[in-house]
């Protein structure tokens, strides 16, 4: 499965964006760029793909205010920059592009965030991917440990066979930013499921306790909100190896969001949800009832936490009754808990009691 575009296709798609601006000026109108609205109000469940995608709402960015006009000019500079990279066979990071924009005069970016957003805008409008644009993310891929084997093409173009239990050190196998077929092939495994873990502390605890071997699973460290490549490799392992994915996070509103982006698709990347989301993923914990059932040490919800929970109540991705119950229960408890709070009952409690009990509910232990 390849979703990449040829340089010619990519250029043609970008030229459509440029032509929209050009044609408007010729018509005597302010130049514009049309793109989908990127909020929770414009994502809808795609039955065919099983994930959330952008809806039909479009927003038109037109050059009637200084801010939007500058954004259009920047888009043109980015298009030019990508064309140059395509022609020269080079690639760069988003951060490098941000610094290169210093030379773009009035089209220079105000912040790194600006350039990231614009790259995403272009992806969405052109239906190309940033890999097509030769733009590499800065973000860190995940770490993996478990009895699974893949091959990765290294810098010299040679394929390397790697077992993520036997061929790696304690920090595990580092997932690269490109996990597509031309870079990574999934070979074989001897595990029953994959467990994605939010914090490094918990990931290391499970490794130290030998959880991956005892429970025949692959462990994946998400590093907070997971990078695209992390979500993409989870998706591929789940589909190509037909493995269940369970997600073990903190018990707070932000973890709920992380789960939604893994299972249903993130709002920011809804244009490529079908490549990134794993619809079969299950939320293992920490749930709102766990806080009560296990009497976990907890913190009061902050104002921001409460706002986030309320926003989730009206987010279409959390519309089912299980999530509505969890969110409402957390609001009622007015408490949140970290994964590490399980240590209240000792270092082995998580691997000997909590996880086995939770996995048993799912029929995985």
């Amino acid at each position, binding site marked *: 499965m390849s979703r990449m575009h040829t340089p010619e296709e990519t250029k043609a798609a970008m030229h459509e964006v440029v032509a929209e601006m*050009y044609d408007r*000026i010729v018509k005597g109108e302010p130049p514009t760029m049309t793109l989908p609205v990127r909020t929770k109000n414009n994502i809808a469940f795609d039955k065919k793909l099983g994930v959330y995608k952008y809806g039909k709402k479009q927003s038109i960015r037109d050059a009637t205010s200084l801010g939007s006009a500058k954004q259009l000019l920047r888009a043109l500079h980015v298009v030019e920059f990508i064309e140059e990279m395509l022609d020269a066979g080079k690639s760069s990071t988003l951060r490098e592009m941000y610094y290169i924009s210093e030379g773009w005069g009035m089209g220079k970016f105000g912040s790194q965030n600006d350039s990231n957003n614009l790259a995403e805008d272009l992806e969405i409008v052109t239906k190309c991917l940033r890999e097509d644009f030769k733009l590499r993310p800065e973000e860190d891929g995940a770490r993996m440990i478990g009895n699974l084997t893949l091959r990765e093409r290294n810098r010299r173009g040679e394929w390397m066979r790697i077992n993520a239990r036997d061929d790696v050190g304690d920090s595990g196998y580092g997932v690269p930013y490109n996990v597509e077929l031309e870079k990574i092939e999934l070979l074989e495994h001897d595990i029953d499921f994959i467990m994605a873990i939010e914090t490094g502390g918990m990931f290391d605890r499970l490794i130290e306790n030998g959880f991956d071997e005892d429970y025949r699973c692959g462990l994946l460290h998400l590093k907070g909100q997971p990078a695209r490549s992390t979500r993409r490799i989870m998706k591929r392992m789940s589909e190509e190896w037909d493995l269940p994915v369970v997600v073990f996070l903190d018990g707070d509103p932000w973890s709920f969001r992380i789960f939604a982006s893994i299972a249903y698709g993130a709002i920011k990347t809804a244009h490529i949800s079908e490549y990134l989301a794993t619809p079969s993923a299950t939320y293992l914990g920490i749930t709102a009832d766990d806080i009560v059932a296990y009497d976990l040490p907890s913190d009061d919800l902050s104002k921001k936490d409460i706002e986030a929970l309320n926003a989730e109540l009206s987010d279409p991705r959390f519309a089912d009754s299980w999530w509505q119950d969890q969110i409402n229960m957390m609001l009622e408890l007015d408490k949140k808990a970290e994964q590490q709070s399980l240590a209240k009952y000792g270092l082995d409690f998580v691997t000997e009691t909590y996880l086995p009990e939770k996995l048993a509910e799912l029929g995985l232990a």
Partner: protein
Amino acid sequence: MKAKYQKGRQSVWQYLRMTSIVNPHAEIIFVDPEGERHHWTRVTERLPTKVESIKPHPHGIELGQLQRMVSESNDLNLNHFLLNNFSGVTNRARKELCQAAELEGTRKMRAIKGDDIRNLLEAFQGERLVNGQPAKLLKPPTNCLSPIAAILIKKGLSKTLASRSITTLTRVPNVTQGNPFQVEVGLIFGGSMAGDKPVEILRFANRVPLMYQQGGCLLTKAIESVDWRQYGLDQAGGKGVPKGPAAILVHLASTNVQFTSEAKEALADNGEVMEEARKAMLEMGRGLRKHLEKKKKMAKTKEKFELINDILPAIAEKSAQLLNRPVPELSGSITKIMSAVISESTTVWNKATKQTDVDIVLFNYTSRARAYTILATWPEKSGATMENNDTGGRKEALGVWAWKLDALQPGERKSITFSLSGLERGDWTETEVLFRGSQDVIGATKMDEKFLQEIRRQEQLFKESEDENTPSEQTLDQAPVASAPPVVEEVAEPAVAPPEGQRTLFGGDV
């Protein structure tokens, strides 16, 4: 005597700095004990107006003073005493005072004793009546006061404090307890001043800096009584000294400044002075708000110009280059983006001609022809003259000139220029542009007729206060004559109630 040289808010340096603000005609050089030289330069060649001395007004006399005046008098009789030694006492007032005090006007001065003096004082103060009313006295003349004048406060402030905007105003003189007084205020905003600290308060009484007892001073209380939040400054709960990058100057000129103590550190409470100072603050606050609103609008206009002059051409060029097509024509897009008529004005000092050059430009960025009358303020009251006004036009009111323009075609620009002579550098730095017409003009204010009325009323007040200073003392020379001048009949009561309006910015140089 041993003393330590100090710096800061209560120091010799601060005293001199404040002195230089209210004396812009003075050149002050101060070498401090550490050998550092401080120099406050002269910023105007105009000297303060000469003041006339006046005689005391009966409303402001105290018993001891009256006793002394009576015993030291060389006047022929009480009639002469009253007419020769007081201001505001006309022939008719003299008669009424004598009646109220139940004293014969022909009574010799040495025959006036303790109880008589007390009776006379009661008549002065309106405690003894004639026909059920206090004796009718004229207001004291006000040419005895030495206001700094708004325009010079502006110069004084701008030389010692770096800032963007200054509002100053001088109120029309008023009277309290027989003493003429006048309040002047100035507000300087922006620049390098700290935005999170209380504003600096600069208090003066008769051009003398007041440096101590700030909290207990009437002038401070007047500032604190205003809700500055509505004018763009921070103020906790709408009370107390406001916070913001600003300094407020208050000057009280009076023949009798009432202090809280012998030390002359702070002004004592006085209802009328308080009212005047408060009104001055409100007026000045409105000026500040207007300035801030204008600044916001100008920033917006500037953005639009950057958009059409820089960004849009760059978009056109880059998109044409990427598509390998010719660079498109922009005028249609520009009209759609701006869809407004825009005015820009500059007011700059021309070193070579020693004139202030004003340039008003009007752009029509709409798809239809537009017709306007453009109006501009100019410092006519300060004695400026308008030159090189090639567009002609006509006088609309005192200090307001109007030009009726032919229809401005879509995409067309028109410019009005003129120069002002008879001013010094820094006298006039901002020209307000107004318009009459149906479509809004960005960068100009729609002329509302209330504004014009206000200008006309100030014009009237300005004239009146000039007339007023043809002093009533003239009646003294006429000695006791039968008929009083007609002016007297018209003045019903010594006006303690402050007049409605006041002179702003350019009313100071009386």
